[in-house]
């Protein structure tokens, strides 16, 4: 299952500056594991030491927050659109 992941600016140094990358997996967790293989260091920015989604990062599958789906076990299918949306504070 190939999905597209939209990477926010602060994390693009792990993707060589690219804003959209693809990865494989049937669940979000598998997708993140696959991401880690191709873009080492990215997983630690998304998941905490217990392997859970960090509380200042949101991930959306096709526009829906995975916290209200099945968290990291959320199923993904071919062509799904995954957005990583970290908290940003900027306003000045």
């Amino acid at each position, binding site marked *: 299952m190939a999905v597209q992941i939209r990477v926010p600016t*602060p994390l693009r140094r792990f993707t060589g500056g690219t804003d959209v990358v693809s990865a494989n997996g049937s669940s979000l967790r598998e997708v993140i594991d696959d991401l880690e293989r191709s873009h080492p260091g990215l997983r630690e*920015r998304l998941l905490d030491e217990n392997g859970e989604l960090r509380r200042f990062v949101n991930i959306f599958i096709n526009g829906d927050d995975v916290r209200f789906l099945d968290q990291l076990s959320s199923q993904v299918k071919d062509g799904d659109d995954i957005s990583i949306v970290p908290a940003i504070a900027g*306003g*000045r």
Partner: protein
Amino acid sequence: MAKTVKGILDEARAQVKEITVEQAREMLQDPQAVVVDVRESEEWRQGHLAQAVSIPRGFLELRVEEKIPDRRRPVIVHCAMGLRSLLAGRALREMGYENVYNMAGGFNAWKNNGLPWVADRQFTEDELARYSRHFLIPEVGEKGQAKLLDAKVLLIGAGALGSPAGLYLAAAGVGTIGLVDFDVVDLSNLQRQIIHATDRIGMLKTESAQKAINAINPGVNVARHDTRLTSENIMGIIAGYDVVINCSDNFPTRYLVNDACVFAKKPLADGAIFQFEGNATVFDPARGGPCYRCLYPEPPPAGMAPSCAEAGVLGVLPGLIGSIEALEAIKLILGVGKPLIGSMVYFNTLADRDFVRVLRLRRDPKCPVCGDHPTQTELIDYEAFCASVSFGANGTAEGSAAGVSSTE
């Protein structure tokens, strides 16, 4: 054969039943009955029946079908004295309206009988010209403009996001704009903080913004809060406002403003920016939406994220996001459209097809602040709250967060 005025009026009386103001009042108990005020808009503005529809006599035939498609509905027409409406009634009968009544004595008799009426806000000549483009939009109109002029909006921060928000709200005629900031204008601000100016470097941002706002619109009352927001002063500051706009630049303030707005049940138009990216939404748990805590239960660990001063921001980006925040505030004030409650617009302005996405947000029933069983019911120490989070055993503090702060 030429007709005289008397002849025309007599003809009209034969077709249009005359009723007294008391009878009109009774008929209007029936929601099916509709009352049409055919006076000119200038007369309407001085005062009118609350439930009346305004169609000046000259536009009657052109507009009535749109306003009253059902020709069987009882239609009461009135003017100031009862003559123009008699002729209007005849025109309606000719158009096939079956139950047309003329209110004898018109609005003057209604008023003199002590029956209830309302007066719309009286706009000055200047205001009529200044807001003429708003008056043309049905969703705004004179009623909407009156709402804007009566509205009070608070901007948290008079910086990059606060600049466009403050300028557009001022131009739109938001009657009271509150500004919270304790900083002074710096040369490095001017690449994006368009409310300020080169000759105001060194001036308090609130004062500089006040000058810009009143230069655009002298009718706006600017309330300056030249202070650092704290858990102690925020409830007193936001109490007087209808809508709060978050234009702050750091996590402690964002959590403070969120929690205070949840407790005070104030809608919060929120926006944040980073380099070429930005997002905007409306937090309003009182209307069923999420709050900032539902979205981000914790801030990124302190000291890990590059600030705007380090990472930079494209000058035009806050123009985009701050304008959306102002737009959302205006939608909330007017009560038109769907505010971005539970929706976040997310801009990646370097992309083409992916330029903007809309993400669906939800209120978290387990949210400590706005959830069904909140565990935090008063304001806390937000500096400590934001300093207490850690990256975890494997993390190093430097440059490792997904989250970003942009404190200058």
